[in-house]
């Protein structure tokens, strides 16, 4: 018995050695035959070889900390590179913080990541007018994401084409932010100084929490999804009416200022009276991620979304301009996600599930009725 146990161990060790060689694709024919023999001798039915080759397709998943390290790193590199390579492409006021590096002592780190911009930022909506109050403003370009570390150790990740501002003495006297666009907030808890986010006609009061806000000027609504903690949502026009949002809840508020806009999310267009709606959101059981925050991981995810809305998001995502020649296409509904697809592949995939034609001409894409 002792002998057979150790023989089994030896065979087992050899099996995994050979599987490791196979994984490197450096296995010789002779070794491959040996491997097949060993696999046959084993009494279990596990498809080891297939399983291991599937391991190759596992994708690396960066943690939030990894992502913030990457964003910091990219900002810092781009800032230094621009310092040596000509005029900076930064826009408006840019937040700076002191260098914390040992290797590059004294260097300032720019937090605005401005990677190549395809089209000029489309400013379609007006930002809430707070007049003379001193705010630090940050504008992100199309196709870039920006991580902002705030003095109170809160972080905000801005999706592309955002306008974001926070009061200059942030965390000293008060914590106020303004947002047009989409952002993910991870707010440091401070019961003495609640944080207030103004997004379109919506006011969100926060104690300490993580949540996602989508308030694009060209969209007809403001959307907030709560991941952690509690937020209190109210309307600028009706500040007395307060709605408490709990984790896994999403609130969608029609943006009154934009009501006249021709493009509306078709699902909501059917309910004209519904101004505020709270729904439950579900984290993906696979990786406990939310569809609403998928953009943090560089994915464009959409579920039963109108083509009109999806096109707006694709414009920001792919830095293109999408034009509908026929409004009937705008109400098509799509579900899916894009990650590494090019805009052409994405459109091709959409076309497989609904009838339309498209024509790509440089950065402009025309959507037409299918012939």
């Amino acid at each position: 018995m002792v002998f057979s146990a150790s023989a089994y161990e030896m065979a087992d060790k050899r099996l995994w050695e050979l599987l490791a060689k196979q994984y490197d694709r450096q296995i010789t024919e002779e070794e491959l035959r040996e491997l097949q023999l060993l696999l046959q001798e084993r009494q279990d039915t596990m498809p080891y070889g297939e399983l291991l080759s599937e391991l190759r397709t596992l994708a690396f998943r960066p943690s939030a900390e990894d992502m913030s390290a990457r964003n910091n790193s990219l900002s810092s590199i781009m800032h230094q590179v621009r310092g040596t390579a000509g005029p900076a492409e930064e826009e408006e006021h840019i937040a700076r913080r002191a260098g914390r590096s040992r290797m590059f002592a004294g260097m300032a780190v720019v937090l605005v990541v401005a990677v190549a911009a395809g089209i000029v930022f489309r400013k379609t909506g007006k930002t809430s007018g707070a007049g003379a109050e001193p705010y630090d403003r940050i504008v992100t370009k199309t196709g870039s994401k920006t991580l902002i570390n705030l003095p109170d150790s809160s972080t905000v990740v801005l999706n592309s084409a955002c306008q974001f501002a926070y009061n200059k003495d942030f965390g000293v006297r008060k914590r106020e932010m303004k947002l047009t666009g989409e952002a993910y907030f991870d707010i440091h808890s401070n019961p003495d100084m609640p944080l207030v986010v103004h997004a379109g006609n919506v006011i969100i009061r926060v104690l300490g929490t993580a949540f996602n806000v989508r308030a694009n000027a060209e969209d007809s609504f403001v959307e907030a999804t709560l991941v952690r903690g509690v937020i209190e949502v109210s309307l600028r026009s009706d500040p007395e009416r307060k709605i408490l949002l709990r984790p896994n809840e999403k609130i969608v508020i029609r943006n009154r200022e934009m009501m006249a806009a021709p493009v509306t999310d078709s699902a909501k267009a059917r309910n004209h009276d519904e101004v505020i709606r709270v729904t439950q959101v579900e984290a993906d059981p696979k990786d406990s991620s939310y569809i609403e925050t998928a953009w943090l991981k560089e994915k464009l995810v959409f579920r039963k979304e109108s083509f009109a809305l999806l096109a707006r998001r694709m414009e920001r995502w792919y830095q293109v301009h999408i034009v509908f020649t026929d409004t009937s296409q705008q109400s098509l509904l799509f579900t899916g996600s894009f990650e590494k697809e090019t805009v052409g592949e994405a459109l091709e995939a959409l076309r497989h599930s609904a009838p339309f034609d498209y024509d790509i001409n440089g950065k402009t894409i025309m959507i037409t009725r299918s012939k």
Partner: protein
Amino acid sequence: MTKDAAYILFERLSLGEDEEALAGLHHLYFYRLYKLACSIVGEKEAAEEIVNDVFLRIWQRRPLLKAVVNPDLYLLKCARNRSLEFLRSQRSAVRVAEDELHDFPVQWEVSPEQLLISSEMVRYINKVIDQLAPKCKLIFLLVKESNLKYKEVAELLNISVKTVEAQMSIALKKIGLAVPLTFLQH
């Protein structure tokens, strides 16, 4: 796939001051270089600076990039060298000894084309990988993420191919044994 993209970006950089190409390379390589640096120096902040330094040097030497045969290995070696320099500046005379590698967290997720591995299994696999010895974990990460051959990993870490093979067989065995367990639960 990544390799082709890297070639193109290297070529673009060698042709001029192409910031977009630099950002593209950063996008492709940051996590790998960062994890490698983390495991050598054992400090996240220092690792981040090391990676920044790698990209800045790449930028400064961009006319030379056209001659690079294997961008993956080139960048990883740069990160390794910077990391060792950093350690040397911290204390005197450091060698790349495997047992000096530090632990670092790493997680994986399923991609849509996976047929056999469910998200339940991935959770299990992540647990198993996280418990691997730092050296084993780093080797697995380098092989998985960079499409490096064992030979190249050995060169990078200054260890023998046999060692890489042995470490990979340990990693694969632990993963392979964990997976059936989760299978049986279904």
